[in-house]
């Protein structure tokens, strides 16, 4: 059986060796198998970051244009397309940040400044706690249920 030939230009020696070689193939499970889909989806969540930050800026700009513009901006957010996008963005970004926090401890050195790095579980619990606290307090405050 002959391999299908996706081939990549990787790990080429600076001088060719004495015999001819078969060209490298990309990782066998890329992009659809193994852990790659989660990694690629994580990267794709960059779109949520860019779009949502831009929509926030649009809101701030509208706020600067006065009450009528702000009300129009808010009314616009009620459009079904926006609602669908924002449900997806909320779920996507929540998954994104929790994955980021799960990966975070392994990126930290043995010592952070003079202190030893806390156990991974403590770091992850702290970061999850931070996210859910900001989400809960922020939502209650911005939503007018607090203060």
């Amino acid at each position: 059986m002959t391999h299908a030939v996706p081939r990549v230009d990787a790990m080429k020696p600076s001088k060719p060796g004495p015999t001819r070689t078969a060209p490298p193939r990309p990782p066998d499970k890329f992009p659809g198998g193994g852990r790659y889909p989660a990694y690629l989806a994580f990267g794709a969540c960059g779109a949520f970051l860019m779009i949502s930050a831009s929509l926030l800026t649009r809101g701030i700009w509208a706020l600067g244009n006065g009450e009528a513009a702000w009300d129009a901006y808010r009314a616009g957010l009620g459009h079904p397309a926006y609602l669908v996008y924002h449900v997806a963005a909320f779920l996507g970004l929540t998954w994104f940040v929790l994955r980021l926090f799960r990966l975070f401890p392994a990126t930290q050195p043995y010592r952070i400044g003079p202190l030893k790095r806390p156990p991974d579980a403590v770091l992850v619990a702290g970061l999850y706690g931070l996210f859910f606290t900001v989400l809960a307090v922020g939502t209650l405050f911005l939503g007018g249920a607090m203060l």
Partner: protein
Amino acid sequence: MSEVKKTIVVTRFDPDKDEVPKTQSYEIPVQDDWKVLEALNYIKDNVDPTLSHRWSCRMAVCGSCGMNVNGEPKLTCKDPISSYGDTIEVAPLANFPVVRDLVVELEGFMDKFKAVKPWIIAAKERAAEEGTHRQSPDELADFKSFSMCINCMLCYSACPVVSNEPDFLGPAALALGHRYNQDSRDEGADERNEIFRDEGGIFSCSYANECTEVCPKGVNPSGAIQQAKLNNVVDWAKSFVVPRRKSS
């Protein structure tokens, strides 16, 4: 010890005859305490002596027997055959040119490996009467996990950046460079950071984290690279306050 039959589907490539690699199936009796490597050795010794594969220590130390088993980079001497079904696909490491069958071309890796200056760089030689270097357990722990690499190259086989950026120095080499940057005896961080910040350096890494996932020795190359990135951001910020030392 129970004996069952399994089909081992092996990638074959003869540079004198084959245009591209093909696969060949061998149905062989296996014992359930075997590793995948023992199945390959069985084929070589008893069925088909033309099969080429690399191996040496049989105990996950030498780093020779890395192959893709069912699409996942594995040390075949560490990978129990009982963890697979009736059919097992064994292919050479992905992302490497193939010399023959399961044997890949290593020179490209050696070039990248040397590029990060993986040795202790000291500004001046230490005189014998000054005695040995002293290093505390904490100072050792700063880099110890990154020094456990056995150069098996599984990380290169899994990394999507290695596929797409021919100049990318790659997980093992960058982690090794970081290992020396973190060593209290070393003074070469400025030199290495220039290489790290260059084309194919640490900032090419997109943190797929595959290297860390497939590493059989717990080296965590992706963690090393992220640490090196942060160090370089701090270094960059500091360069505004204190001019960077020029390396020769």
